[in-house]
């Protein structure tokens, strides 16, 4: 068989997927770019060309900077915490103890719990009048009176972060555990013979095996944390006083609550650009690490 026929055949097999992807992703994305230069409304007028007006107005307004800061803060704290907890849990599960298999099976549960159910569950736990957190802290004598965890700007974001970390650190743990189990036993044994202590065993024997998979998990979780919408929408809708408003919530408000399709599109593209820059930067690091490990 000739090379050209093989390539043509491959394209033919990919064609259905590519057609669908162009229809549901490529075209809408192009249309978002187009909309971002207009003052289109969600319904009714298709709008007229306004150049970079939307971008200028959004970037100079104060909602943008504050929302970008909230989003970045959320992403950094959530991802860092999940990585740390995930690796700790994986190191624990890589040891021998009774009930290890059961505990590993439990890790899949928060991951499998639908995001909206997780958000609802934590919303109930944080309930200002009947919530389990208030009840537990009061009964333990830590708290003297019930608080509105999601209703106060000072605690709402932290409360969201806890809920998100609880659901997502098990995924990091599962990935890290699989990587740990790939560390060859004889290498570990050899490091014992050579008299390496626990820290240098982790640093020089285990970590090189962990680094690659963890970096990939880091990239994926960062992108997801930056796009976050569901958990925030269900728990606080971005409030109180916009203290938990992330970029996706802001775009939603602009495009759908205020029906400003044009400037909503501009905002969505700015978010996309930020995520792309992040991903490319990470990608370069991942390639470097993968290269040095090989």
């Amino acid at each position: 068989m000739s090379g050209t026929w093989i390539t043509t055949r491959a394209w033919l097999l990919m064609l259905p997927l590519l057609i669908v992807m162009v229809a549901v992703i490529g075209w809408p994305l192009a249309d978002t770019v187009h909309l971002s230069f207009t003052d289109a409304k969600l319904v009714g007028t298709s709008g007229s060309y306004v150049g970079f007006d939307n971008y200028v107005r959004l970037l100079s307004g104060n909602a943008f900077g504050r929302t970008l800061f909230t989003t970045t803060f959320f992403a950094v704290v959530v991802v860092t915490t999940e990585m740390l907890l995930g690796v700790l849990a994986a190191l624990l599960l890589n040891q021998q103890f009774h009930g290890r298999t059961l505990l590993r099976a439990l890790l899949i549960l928060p991951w499998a719990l639908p995001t909206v159910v997780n958000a609802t569950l934590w919303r109930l736990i944080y309930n200002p009048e009947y919530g389990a957190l208030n009840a537990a802290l009061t009964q333990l004598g830590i708290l003297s009176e019930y608080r509105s965890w999601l209703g106060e700007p000072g605690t709402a974001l932290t409360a969201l972060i806890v809920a998100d970390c609880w659901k997502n650190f098990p995924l990091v743990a599962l990935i890290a555990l699989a990587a740990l189990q790939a560390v060859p036993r004889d290498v570990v044994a050899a490091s014992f013979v050579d008299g390496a202590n626990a820290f240098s065993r982790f640093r020089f024997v285990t970590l090189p095996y962990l680094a690659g998979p963890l970096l990939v998990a880091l990239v994926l979780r960062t992108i997801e944390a930056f796009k976050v919408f569901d958990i925030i929408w269900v728990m606080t809708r971005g409030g109180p006083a916009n203290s938990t408003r992330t970029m996706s919530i802001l775009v939603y408000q602009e495009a759908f609550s205020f029906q400003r399709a044009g400037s909503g599109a501009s905002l969505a593209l700015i978010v996309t650009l930020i995520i792309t820059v992040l991903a490319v930067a990470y990608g370069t690091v991942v390639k470097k690490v993968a290269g040095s490990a090989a």
Partner: protein
Amino acid sequence: MERQSPLFRLFLHLAALLLAAIILAPLLWLFVMSISPAADLAAKPLRWWPETMDFSRYATLLSTVENSAGAAFMASLRNSLMVASMATVAAVSLAVPAGWAVSRTPSVGWSLSLVIATYMLPPVALAVPLYMALANFGLLNNVFGLALVYLTILAPFTTWLMKSGFDGIPREIEQAAVIDGASLWQTLRIITLPLALPVVATSALFAFLLGWDEFFYALLFTSDQRAKTLTVAIADLAGGRVSDYGLIATAGVLAALPPMLVGIVMQRALISGLTSGGVKG
């Protein structure tokens, strides 16, 4: 291996207990809320375990009496099942040929990279044009329209899983069959696809769970019982005027049950799927 000292063993078991408690406490509480009488949930100090277990909310939600809370819940359950299944079948049908093509013909691989890169796109970057298009075709508040939109998430993901699955099947097996006189289609049907079946199943499961979990598009593109999915119905309950928190918890338990059962039963396959992505990148 190193012999564990008694102190270290004690530490390990305590840490394991702590981890188990962290994972289980919120989940158990969700279940306890669903079976506690409303009075217990509003009691101060809060009752952590009901005096009498009350399963009546499950009956309420799973009833099909017209215009009841149950009817709305059952409709959203049916919509979620339909949308997630249709999107899964479509995504896997697109992913199998495309995944095989990329696996065997690396020169077209860049197109898959492009498809996978769309993972970076926040759904809000597609939402406005998709909304307008669905409105134009009369597909707003429609399970078919929603399933079509779900392909934006499901199709790239399943194609990527299928591609790494086919990578694990040696192409020498296919070449041997071709040399023995089998046509390419025979080879694929008799050799490759049966070998790839576990990967197809894993991809389908992942796709279904993604569809079951989806909220953003469903929130935007559905408005009533004809298409509203379970995630939207639960968010409505959580943000609405429902005064019985136990009912919200019950809906949560019911929505969480299918993916959790899948997660426990298919643990091995899911973890290998998750980590093959994580390890290979």
